[in-house]
């Protein structure tokens, strides 16, 4: 991975544990009063539930709450239909345009341009790898699937960045938002994806849209975290110097903080991309096409050989995208040097 300290692959989990047990929560600061408080709160909740909600507490409450959630989801589906249709329209339009463009470009030209980009940004060896691995996929007849998967990844990652970077910047400026966001991001990354795939189908019906949105839920958190972190961990003296010129808050953000955080933000983009790729097989369960669907279909027909080939395609795409985004990150870091 990139040798940026914040870009390690196990990052999200490290954060998760820190959030739960150490980061600035009242428990870690002063655990003396926290223990009785926890006892009182849980005891109080038990009593309220026992007397007010159900006397067979706690065994019957869960079903009831779950049912109410379903009713609420149905209400959303019935009343916000046009909104969901609009979202779907936009996503599908982007996906189809992108796919059409790459297919119109024909596979030899596409492969050549990807190899060229690899050469310019990474190395000649990487260019050889990109060209030969994509050529291999093309000869396996997987080119259309590969294009479909790439389009899916590009659209998902673009949307992720559009959501994650502003959110991360905002979180870096507000400790309160940061505190609220942390557990939500943890939940997004640890919630089993099937749990939100099914309602996503309910809202958007089968196809690429629920796949993109489900992937978003999984892929947005690392980019938010790294953007936030990248801005928060800037060297004190640089910020102090900027402050001493009389910079306003917004000048500080736009002229100093965000430009300096770009290597870390890019590391977040890299993470997001890999997260998105790890979702393509699951995404195919709700109707996404591409290599994920090929894997799924092959396994369904008990053709492990074909499944392996499509899986290999996912690996190749992952390596190519990872190396290119990493090289972009490194270029940013080199440009900034070690001030």
């Amino acid at each position, binding site marked *: 991975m990139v040798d940026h300290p914040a870009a390690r692959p196990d990052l999200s989990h490290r954060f998760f544990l820190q959030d739960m047990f150490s980061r600035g929560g009242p428990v870690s600061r002063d655990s003396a009063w926290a223990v009785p408080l926890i006892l009182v709160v849980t005891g109080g909740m038990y009593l309220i539930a026992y007397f007010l909600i159900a006397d067979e507490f706690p065994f019957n409450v869960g079903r009831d709450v779950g049912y109410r959630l379903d009713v609420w989801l149905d209400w959303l589906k019935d009343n916000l239909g046009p909104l969901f249709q609009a979202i779907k329209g936009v996503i599908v339009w982007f996906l189809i345009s992108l796919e059409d463009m790459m297919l119109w470009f024909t596979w030899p030209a596409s492969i050549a341009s990807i190899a060229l980009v690899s050469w310019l940004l990474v190395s000649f060896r990487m260019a050889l790898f990109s060209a030969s691995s994509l050529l291999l996929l093309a000869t396996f007849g997987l080119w259309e699937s590969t294009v479909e998967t790439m389009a899916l990844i590009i659209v998902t990652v673009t949307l992720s960045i559009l959501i994650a970077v502003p959110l991360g910047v905002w979180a870096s400026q507000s400790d309160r938002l940061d505190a609220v966001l942390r557990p939500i991001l943890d939940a997004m990354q640890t919630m089993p994806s099937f749990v939100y795939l099914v309602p996503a189908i309910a809202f958007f019906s089968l196809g690429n849209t629920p796949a993109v949105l489900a992937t978003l839920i999984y892929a947005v958190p690392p980019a938010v975290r790294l953007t936030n972190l990248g801005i928060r961990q800037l060297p004190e*003296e*640089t910020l*102090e*110097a*900027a*402050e*001493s*010129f*009389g*910079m*306003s808050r917004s*000048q500080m953000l736009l*002229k*100093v903080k965000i*430009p*300096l955080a*770009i290597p870390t933000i890019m590391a977040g983009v890299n993470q997001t991309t890999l997260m998105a790729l790890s979702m393509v097989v699951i995404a195919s369960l709700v109707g996404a096409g591409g290599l994920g669907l090929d894997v799924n279909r092959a396994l369904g027909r008990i053709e492990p050989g074909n499944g392996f080939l499509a899986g290999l395609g996912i690996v190749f795409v992952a390596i190519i995208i990872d190396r290119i985004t990493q090289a972009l990150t490194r270029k940013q870091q080199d*440009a*900034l*040097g*070690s*001030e």
Partner: protein
Amino acid sequence: MPADREVALSINGLYKVFADDGGRGLSLAVEGRSKDEIQEETGAVVGLRDINIEITRGELFVVMGLSGCGKSTLVRCINRLIEPSVGQVWLNGREITAMSDDELRDARRHDLAMVFQHFGLMPHRNVIDNVALPLEVGGVAKPERRDRAASALELVGLADWGGSMPNQLSGGMKQRVGLARGLAMETPVLLMDEPFSALDPVIRRDLQDELLALQESVQKTIVFITHDLNEAVRVGDRIAIMRDGAVVQLGAPNDVVLNPADSFVREFTQDVRLHGMVTAASIMDTGAEALAGVTDDRYVVQEDAVLDELVPAGLSATQPLQVVNRAGALVGVIPLERLARAMVSDEAAASLAAE
């Protein structure tokens, strides 16, 4: 020091206590309790205690002390990078400590430039854009700020380096950029927080010389922080020595070196070479009798010549040296045996000067 002695920057009764104890540490500090006592009792850390300084326009004022003595806190209280707890800072008749956020930003853009120990350059901008950044922030139009940045870079000898990135420069060059950035702002006041401490000794000396040469022409009011008394003595018009957040001695360099206020200051001054400090004026005899005896006018020295500079004249002289002031008038004489005594050792020179 200029003749008009107009006060540019004045610090009155300034305290800084780092604490979130609702001001208890602060009131103890105002009562005069010791730093350790206060820390033990309330957990508050006294950063500055009752600082009163008046800095003249065009003066290069040095604040010197060991790390943790509060000197960096003091300089940051001037432009409020650190908010003082009590007390006032006045700049040319305006109270900085009473300014609103907008007024303060404006003062930082137009009145108070700052140079940092680790340079504080923006690694994503090239040298000239770094120098121009404060002007950009202050809303100066692009052509003008490029011009001003270019001429500031020329002043510090980096005219050809505008297009380089900061990480391509050596430490000394980076600090020149930092200095150029401060100069380009064309502020009346320049705050320098240990500007040369991160540099190696030779480069440090070069930059000290350059700063002095620049100061001759720009005549800014400079507050210069250092932990090095040699540096303080070399560059300063006046020196304030700080310990535990308070000023323990304030005076001209030779005053501080020759008459240390207490054992703490004396410990610093031991490392300073006095021969470079003792002036003709401080060891001369001004008695009417001595002045009357002068006949030969071959051995004339300036009153601010230091001992090292007196030696060549002393070696060839057969008569007492005549000390003249800038106007050329005779102000005293140095009998040769007195000069010889002063040259024997630093201690002898110091005791002669103290006489």
